[in-house]
């Protein structure tokens, strides 16, 4: 693996074996994360983005879930290269929280109501760094200071219910970063917060990334947040990556019809002000994961659908130049503007 890379996921497959059949929640996803960069994974609900992140932590509930294939190479803080798909549970416990940390969507319920925030931050430090409780509490105070909570020493003895949602998310970030992880997985960390607090939290994460130098795997369905945070973007649909590129080309020149649809469905202030924009919705719904359409899973909703071409076999992920990867048989036509909508 390239020295610049922190994570390299190849052909990851996570299947859920339910009574109704096998749900291929993630079916052959590949991506990589460089050191210090932010990779955003975007997609609708059920596209497999959260499962991907849980698979990297090996936290897929099993049964019914199982990682059935693929490699997840990860370079730990000790410099050792590991395949996360194959490590045993004891090693994974050392990696979780120490090398890879995670913050969750719901700051209101992610903190244990019976412990003070100081206790909870200190727990991770005691667990991974073997420090005494007192030292850990001191470090917890530093972490609270780092995430911008005023009077950190006093706040250590607060219970979660004494804090607002934004403050709790800051505490979650302090917990996640307390052991200096090299990768932070943020699973829709701002979805439950109101807009001004969202901006503050995103700003904070960017600032901390610069200070600590960690990589971030940012999972979201909010394209505005992607533009703000990400260096590169992976767009997922029905368990597969359909487009992967740097953030600017993704927004300026999307090649996959799904990405285009997503971008068109975001309100834009500049166009809205002149009443020129009517929001476009992507017609239809996410397909039932138990019976995906034949061929490209997006074809029933695609405006460039061509019968006989799109619904026969699953298109391969192709390089459209400059590492811009796209999974569409008609990407070349779309790039040149020749594709005609059906």
């Amino acid at each position, binding site marked *: 693996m390239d020295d610049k890379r922190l994570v390299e996921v190849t052909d990851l497959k996570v299947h859920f074996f339910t009574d109704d059949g096998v749900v291929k929640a993630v079916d052959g996803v590949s991506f990589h994360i460089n050191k210090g960069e932010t990779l955003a994974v975007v997609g609708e609900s059920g596209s497999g983005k959260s499962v991907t992140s849980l698979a990297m*932590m090996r*936290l897929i*509930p*099993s*049964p019914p879930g199982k990682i059935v294939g693929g490699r997840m190479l990860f370079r730990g803080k000790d410099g050792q290269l590991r395949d996360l798909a194959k490590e045993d549970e004891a090693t994974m*416990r*050392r*990696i*979780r*929280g*120490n090398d890879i*940390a*995670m913050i*969750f969507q*719901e700051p209101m*319920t*992610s*903190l*244990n*109501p*019976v*412990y003070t925030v100081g206790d909870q931050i200190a*727990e*991770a430090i005691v*667990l*991974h760094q073997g420090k005494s409780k007192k030292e850990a509490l001191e470090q917890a105070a530093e972490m609270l200071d780092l995430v911008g909570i005023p009077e950190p020493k006093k706040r250590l003895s607060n219970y979660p219910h004494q804090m607002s949602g934004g403050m709790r998310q800051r505490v*979650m970030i302090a*917990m*996640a970063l307390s052991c200096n992880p090299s990768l932070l997985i943020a699973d829709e960390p701002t979805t439950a917060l109101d807009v001004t607090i969202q901006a503050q939290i995103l700003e904070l994460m960017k600032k901390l990334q610069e200070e600590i130098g960690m990589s971030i795997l940012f999972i979201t369905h909010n394209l505005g947040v992607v533009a703000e945070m990400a260096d590169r973007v992976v767009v997922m649909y029905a368990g597969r990556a359909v487009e992967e590129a740097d953030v600017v080309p993704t927004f300026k020149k999307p090649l996959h019809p799904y990405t285009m649809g997503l971008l068109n469905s975001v309100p834009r202030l500049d166009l809205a002000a002149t009443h020129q924009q009517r929001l476009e919705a992507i017609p239809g719904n996410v397909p039932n994961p138990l019976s995906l359409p034949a061929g490209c899973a997006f074809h029933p909703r695609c405006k460039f659908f061509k019968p006989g071409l799109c619904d026969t076999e699953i298109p391969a992920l192709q390089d459209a130049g400059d590492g811009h990867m796209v999974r569409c048989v008609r990407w070349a036509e779309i790039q040149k503007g020749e594709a005609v909508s059906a």
Partner: protein
Amino acid sequence: MLRRVPSSSSAPANRSFFQQAWLRFKRHPLARLGAAILLVFYLGALFADFLAPYPEEKSFRDFSFAAPTQIFWRDENGRLTRPYVCASERRRNPETFKVEVITDCEKGRYPIYFFTKGEPYHFLGLFPADLRLMGGPWLLEDKARLFLWGTDDFGRDIWGRIWFGARISLTIGIFAVALALLIGIFMGSISGYYAGRPVTFSIGLLNPRFWAFVRASRLLDHLLALLGLALIAALFWGMAQGYQLYIRPDLQRVSTLLLGMLGLGVGLVLFGLLLYSLVWRSHLVRALLWLLAWVGVAWLVWITVWGFLQSSRGLEAFLAGLLGAGLLGAIGYILLWPRIELDLDTLIMRSVEVLAAIPDLFLLIILSVLIPMEVPPAVRFVLVVTILSFVNWGGLARIIRSQVLQLREMEYAQAAQALGAGDARIVIRHVLPGTYTYLIVAVTLAIPGFILGESGLSFLGLGIQEPATSWGLMLSKAQATGITAFTERPWLLIPGVFIFMAVLAYNFMGDGLRDALDPRTKV
């Protein structure tokens, strides 16, 4: 112009959860009543020596089944005076021709003094004292007797023995519930946490991972493990010596029993530390211990089956042989088969159901019969506690399981997992603390069941034995004299009233606690 607002007029102080609970509890009149009754009972049990005029085992052979001693308030001139008792003796009543206790004030009047010197005793078995609530010099000199609530068949004072009996009747519930809670928490949390998540129970010799596991530790670890095993053997030898030399000859005294238990506790902690720090790192020794445990089980099965075969014939021997072969085959299967997964939830919960399907009293009686008759009272107390909790842990385990099932799905449990916490840490630190309000209530409501269980056992003569006493045992005296107890010796039923009141008080208090601690009720 700005003025400083006095800080005392600010909003009322935040109340903590327990302060709020206390407020709600205080508003519950029956719960207050229950708590007050229990407080009186427990204080009475604590100060039983002070309340009772006589020592626990003092009996007056002449006065068996004596009615409550009459207490007089007026002297011979009809004037109010200090309460006194009169001399009494057992003789034939010339009018009814029955042998009964006749009180005769002409023969002597003996005033009752309060907070007076009585027979010496050791308060809590430690501090010498002789202060008693009622009595007088005449009581010590045995000129007259004071039986507030009559006597039992041995002529022992029931009023005093009620309080001595309370020591056992009221604490047995607490000890039994504590033990049942321990079992219940262990079983319930395992059951709830692993519900729907099968656990790898065994990796057998045919699995390559077994051998990879054995090879995974260094030579130094193996050597340390040998040292650790030697130390453990020495520890066990020392404990056995200590038991023989110091504990066994004097087992009937509670203090030596406590000392023994302390020694056992220290020994177990040392054992755990040695096992964890020295032995557990050597994977070879771990695998050997695992194999050894199964070989031990197989050996037990073998000698049992062999014994059966020696002493039986025909179909019986055939069935025994079949069963033995099946068990030995199962053990071989466990040892060899690459991987066996167990659903601990099913295993534990089905055992609870089997236990619940057997009638409680039946099971209690069967187990009590197993206690040898000649064990010392302190040991008997411990055994009765163990039996009661063994029969009754199922309900608590179910409550805990349901709570754990709910709490393990909370995001903070998953967040702890994402921080690298192991299963034990998540259950103990993040899941179980969320259940404590339910547990307090469940435990309070479970105690009366244990009190009744003990009473039932003692009533049947299978629980606490003479000369120790408990309310159930005292109540059995009423049964021993047949239906006449109701008409001629109603004072023998007084212990039943105490059982009734204690159980009711616990239920009232449990109800109040439930209302107070339920996080869903808001004030």
